[in-house]
């Protein structure tokens, strides 16, 4: 596995430096791994994201205008330590509190939990919304056991717009919870990515198998099946998402997102999208907007995920607002 690295053990810190370079003045690194926008307005309720690196453009590539205000970056695939989260929290806080928004993984939950205690001790009000969109990771009755996967793109985008409008932290929590609760995803793994430090694969999967519902690090899903066609896979993903507890049917409007886990090409995402759209339209579901591409990745992992966000009158104006970031940019409607 050839990788463009200098010191594999410094990959995380170098990529965060590079990210600050990418933002070319609009982002600063307040301490190693803690980054924040430079122009957060004084009355803002702040939005902080974070998690392990190596999944670019998430999470830290989602900061920007109309997106998150800052991010706490961990090592490769590892949750950021509490002090990094605290530093980022202080950098984005404008006295109106900070919302922590991140994927539901035990490492992240524990580190953010400690950080919120530290923040509280410094008089900063912090609330948390966990992203748990992966329907294949636990039954609907146990949402708090579900992983956060590609749904975090629409959720962070909606949250970013919400943070620009919210009067206070409670209102922001409510808006973001609305976005989170209306988003469902499922992923299909075709081949592992590699661990930058060692070059070893992140998991194992037979050459003729697909991990149905498998997580982005290779976590167990709902089963392993034989390799299938793009259409069959689209059917399976739509079925799994629509079978969940969020009713999506005739007349409903959804955001559709076909995410590449890394090396799966846009060509393949487009072919899958074609079938997904046909299936939804057949059911009378309206497509409000479409997202596509490698946004929630695990190095050069092959695979795809489908996320649906059911729109409502609260979410629509949030979605229609412009935003800009490395990971996702959209013009206003």
């Amino acid at each position, binding site marked *: 596995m050839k990788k463009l690295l200098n010191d594999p053990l410094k990959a995380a810190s170098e990529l965060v430096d590079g990210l600050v370079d990418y933002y070319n003045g609009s982002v600063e690194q307040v301490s190693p791994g803690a980054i924040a926008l430079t122009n957060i307005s004084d009355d803002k309720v702040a939005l902080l994201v974070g998690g392990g690196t190596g999944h670019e453009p998430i999470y830290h590539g989602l900061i920007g205008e109309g997106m998150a205000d800052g991010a706490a970056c961990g*090592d490769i695939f590892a949750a950021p330590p509490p002090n990094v989260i605290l530093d980022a929290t202080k950098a984005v806080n404008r006295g109106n509190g900070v919302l922590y928004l991140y994927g539901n993984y035990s490492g992240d939950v524990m580190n953010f*939990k400690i950080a919120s205690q530290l923040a509280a001790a410094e008089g900063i009000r912090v609330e948390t919304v966990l992203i748990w969109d992966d329907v294949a990771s636990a039954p609907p009755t146990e949402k708090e056991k579900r992983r956060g996967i590609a749904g975090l793109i629409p959720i962070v985008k909606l949250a970013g717009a919400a943070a620009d409008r919210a009067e206070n932290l409670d209102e922001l929590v409510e808006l973001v919870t609305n976005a989170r609760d209306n988003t469902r995803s499922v992923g299909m793994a075709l081949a592992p990515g590699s661990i930058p*430090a060692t070059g070893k694969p992140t998991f194992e999967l037979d050459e003729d198998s697909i991990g149905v519902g498998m*997580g982005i690090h290779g976590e167990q899903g709902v089963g392993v099946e034989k390799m299938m066609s793009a259409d069959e896979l689209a059917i399976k993903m739509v079925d799994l998402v629509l079978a969940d507890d969020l009713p999506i049917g005739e007349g409903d409007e959804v955001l559709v997102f076909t995410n590449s886990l890394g090396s799966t090409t846009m060509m393949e995402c487009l072919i899958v999208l074609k079938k997904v759209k046909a299936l939804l339209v057949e059911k009378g579901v309206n497509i409000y907007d479409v997202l596509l591409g490698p946004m929630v990745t695990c190095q050069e992992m092959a695979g795809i995920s489908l996320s649906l966000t059911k729109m409502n009158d609260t979410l629509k104006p949030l979605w229609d607002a412009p935003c800009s970031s490395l990971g996702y940019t959209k013009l206003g409607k």
Partner: protein
Amino acid sequence: MSAPTLDPTDVKQMLLKVADVIIESEEMLSQADRDLGDGDHGLGMQRGFTAAKAQLEGLDPKTVAEVFTTTGMALMASMGGASGAVMGMLFQSGGAALGANDSLDADGLCAFLQGACDGVTNLGGAKPGDKTMVDALAGARDKAEDIDCETVSEALQAACDGATEGMEATKAMIATMGRAKTLGEKSIGHPDPGALSVSIIFKTMSDYANQ
């Protein structure tokens, strides 16, 4: 030596030894995490104990607690990941339970272990049987409490045995916690990497006190 108590400097030396052994075990711990998780556990522990070592080396400890909490803070701040939180918490809450004592005796070790267990369980919600480092840590606590030890060396030997048993027991368990730990049935047969780390930590502490 088979010390009845350890003074702060002994504890510091003991933890420096722990740091060295953990750093040397990087490959083994990473392999264990490759079997069950995302393969980075050894790297995280190496990073954490390298940071802890640097902190400890500059420390002139007045209390035993200080040595443990310094270690805990260093792990917590440098590791990240699930293990950064739980390993950091182990040493921090364990240390916090020791008050201002200037030596570690058998009772002190039991208090340390109880504090560590409480802190970690509170933080991450894992109970014994979930196939995490809690199995090794609770094993250490139970064994050290069960046996009525006179010296800290004996207590550390008991903790080591209990941690090892707890770690061994994780092999038969199905993982339910942690980032990449949802292999289900496939996780059977492999020890939990965090439990492996905990068993190494107490084995090294016991070896130090009983050398």
